[in-house]
């Protein structure tokens, strides 16, 4: 089975949030709590030796996604042909009824909910329609720094190596998130 995933060059990211806004525009998501793609600033150190990095968080489309295991009604599944993790929003019970089990299970907050009562889960779907047409995810094409890539994980490994380390990120050998990094080193 092919597993698709993301590559993120943390050394190039300037924290411009273009990917996050491009994602909202493409998927027509209002400003507010739903962020299929999140950019997190990681600040450490003290003056005059601060450290700053940004982390790209979308859905890492785990090989063994904890959200899918947590879902009481199996609304979250992986697409056989490419490993994209998708949610069936008709099946989803809503976050009030199930108490956000998927969100709580995900270390990276990929499952997202509107503020409305008993909101159904939504999240990054790897721009699967674009992917099916042979196009890149909109975040990848948006990045002014060319810091993102996406595609079959094995191909990404050939291109970028197999590092799964980045500032602000802890790899889970259990869930096997489909993401590779070029980490920003601590100075």
């Amino acid at each position, binding site marked *: 089975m092919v597993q698709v995933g993301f590559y993120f060059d943390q*050394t*190039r*990211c*300037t*924290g*411009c*949030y*273009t990917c*996050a*806004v*491009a994602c*909202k*525009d*493409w998927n*027509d998501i*209002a*400003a*507010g709590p739903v962020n299929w793609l999140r*950019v997190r600033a990681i*600040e450490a*150190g*003290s*003056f*005059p*030796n*601060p450290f*700053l*990095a940004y982390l790209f968080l979308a859905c890492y489309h785990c090989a063994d996604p904890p959200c899918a295991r947590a879902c009481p009604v199996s609304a979250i599944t992986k697409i056989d042909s490419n490993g994209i993790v998708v949610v069936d929003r008709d099946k989803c019970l809503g976050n009030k009824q199930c108490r956000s089990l998927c969100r709580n299970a995900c270390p990276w907050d990929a499952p997202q909910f509107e503020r409305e009562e008993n909101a159904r889960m939504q999240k990054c779907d790897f721009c699967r*329609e*674009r992917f099916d*047409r042979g196009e890149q995810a*909109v975040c990848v*094409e*948006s*990045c*002014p*720094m*060319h810091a993102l890539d996406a595609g079959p994980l094995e191909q990404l490994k050939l291109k970028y190596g197999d590092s799964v380390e980045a500032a602000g990120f802890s790899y889970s050998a259990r869930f096997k998130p489909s993401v590779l990094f070029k980490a920003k080193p601590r100075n």
Partner: protein
Amino acid sequence: MPEDNNVTIIPTGCCHDCGGRCVLKAHLKDGRIIRIETDSGEEPQYRACLRGRSYRQRVYSPDRLKYPLRRTGERGEGRFERVSWDEALDTVAAEMVRIKEKYGNPAIFLGSGGGNQGLLHNADVIARMLVNFGGFTRTWGVASHEGALFASMATYGTMHTGNSREDLLNSRLIIMWGWNPAVTIQDSGTSFWLAQAKEKGIRIVAVDPRYTDTAATFAGQWIPIRPGTDAAMLIAMAHVIITENLHNQSFIEKYTTGFDKYRDYLLGAEDGIPRTAQWAESITSVPAETIASLAREYAATSPAALISGWGPARTAMGEQYSRAANMLPAITGNIGIPGGFAAGFMRAYTSRQRMMPGGPSNPVERGAPPRDDSLYKLRGGTNPTSVRIHSSKVYDAILRGRAGGYPADIKMAYIACCNFLNQHPNLNRGIAALKSLEFIVVHEQFMTPTAKFADIVLPVNTFMERSDIAAPWLGSPYYIYLNRVIDSLYESKSDLDICRELSRKLGILPLYGDSTEDELLRARANARYDVTDYDTLKKDGVLKIKLPEPVISFKKQIEDPENNPFPTLSHKIEIYSEHLAEMNSPLFPPVAKYISHWEGYDDPLAEKYPLQLLTTHDKARTHSILHNISWAEETEAHAVWINTADASARNIADGDLVDVYNGRGRIRLPARVTARIMPGVVDVSEGAWYNPDENGVDLGGCANVLTNDEQSPGGAVPMNTALVQVELVPATQEAD
């Protein structure tokens, strides 16, 4: 394969004053923009940032101004009623005629800015209409760059001092001085070139009071420096270079003039104070050894690029920083060679201003003598006429007029392409000035803090609703065609169409005759040798010009000086400027000097207001544009940056609501407690919209409530020179 057969993709672009010009591709379905993409074509790509990607929200914002409005409440209150275009333009025309007849044309002030930067749709259309009406009063002194421009003219006689960005890869050392292109863009793609330079192993150093996104991403070393003292460090670097005999003597002899006089200043021959690294340490707070080693490294590494950003020149003696920056490449020979950089104004490829046609001169300015503190003998810099008002002094000029020594008694403001009140220093003084005027008309897309002071507000369309051509912001080799994507929304019109209708009502010459938008754009494109086919540009939306080699400013002057003099009065690089010497003023020294100034770190006022305020650019806004667009605004909260130690001394925790204040006003916003700014300095990014409570405390966090409406001697707008204090908001007030 298209995703949807009913979607049309229209190439257009983004053209506000962010520092970039980027490709946008609008997806149109059933007459509505549903998505936006960017450049996915050949390299280099001009990919839009979050500002362009959030533009759909701006076009369809429910807050767009839909109809012409007439004020019904007090100025600034924001109460208006809908009127027809006819009624609105009749009112504007009648007031213009009345004021012209009663006070003369100089009483009409044009307050314009870089709000729209298309080659056709910009504030120039209003200026042309006002010229046809008999003239008007306008400003000089561009907030962004006036200090850098003054110094560039004084040293090199031109603003064309830059190399195209791909040349960064030819450097062996890049010093980014007060330069933050990750946020200020400085031509689309600049940050990506910096990433490639870093990945090539080129050493990059950042000098800045803040650990900016640019410094954090690209620099191997961050040197924090006190605001307003950059000139002292640059001068000390020159001292180290010449006293250690690291300067390029043959270059200096061949291409420059006045080196001896600068050396005298550096060595203290005039006043007994040698400008050593130790001297600069006490001023800049940068350790002497850091200064000396950077100087040695810059002199020993060839080629090296010192890129002097414009921000440190937005200070009370801003020109001296830019002049001092220009001196380092001049004494080390990093000019006119690949991988070097002359500093200066930094324009490279000349696509931009060449496409702006010259127009008839302003009758109000005809025959007026030049300002005696201007570089009037040089061409290509700031217009030196003495009847313009410095942009920092507009409010003072309105309030005091001719009696206060200004060239006009202003009675009416015509404001377009500019959120004037929000974006000029000392906002509270601005309110008093605007309230004193007899008539104000504002062209706007939203009810900005400025529009609230208008008598008539005219709704303008966005660049998605008209066609235009955009040339790069600073100097890269490409053009963008902005195809009109949708019809103008509601009753909005372009500035051009508004001025055409108003010209008819005024009975003056038609603006650009009867030419259509397409004819005007075609004519401008055809006037350029590098735009080979207008229709192809229009169809493709972008024209990327293939250069045989990078643009290297002054290459010809260095290779063949006999036949290619520098465009200065001496035909050489002017380390010493006779033009400045003739001004005979300590504020205009003929060589670069560090001059202590008001509201600097050493001003006695610092006892009361101990923190130096920066008002930097925000990554989610283009100045004040996009403040009200939630996709952009939610990315990072507007906050005052304050160092951990300064915050702790005031019991301020990250996220606490604080007041930043001085004698000019008070703003309230959250604190961002961080090690990314040096102690003693705070930063409120400019552009957040002024939003006062009943006590006049600005809850919007507009930086210009705190800035000073003064100018530097050479015209720099001192947006980064102000002293403030910060305190926690008392709990009782916070609850309100």
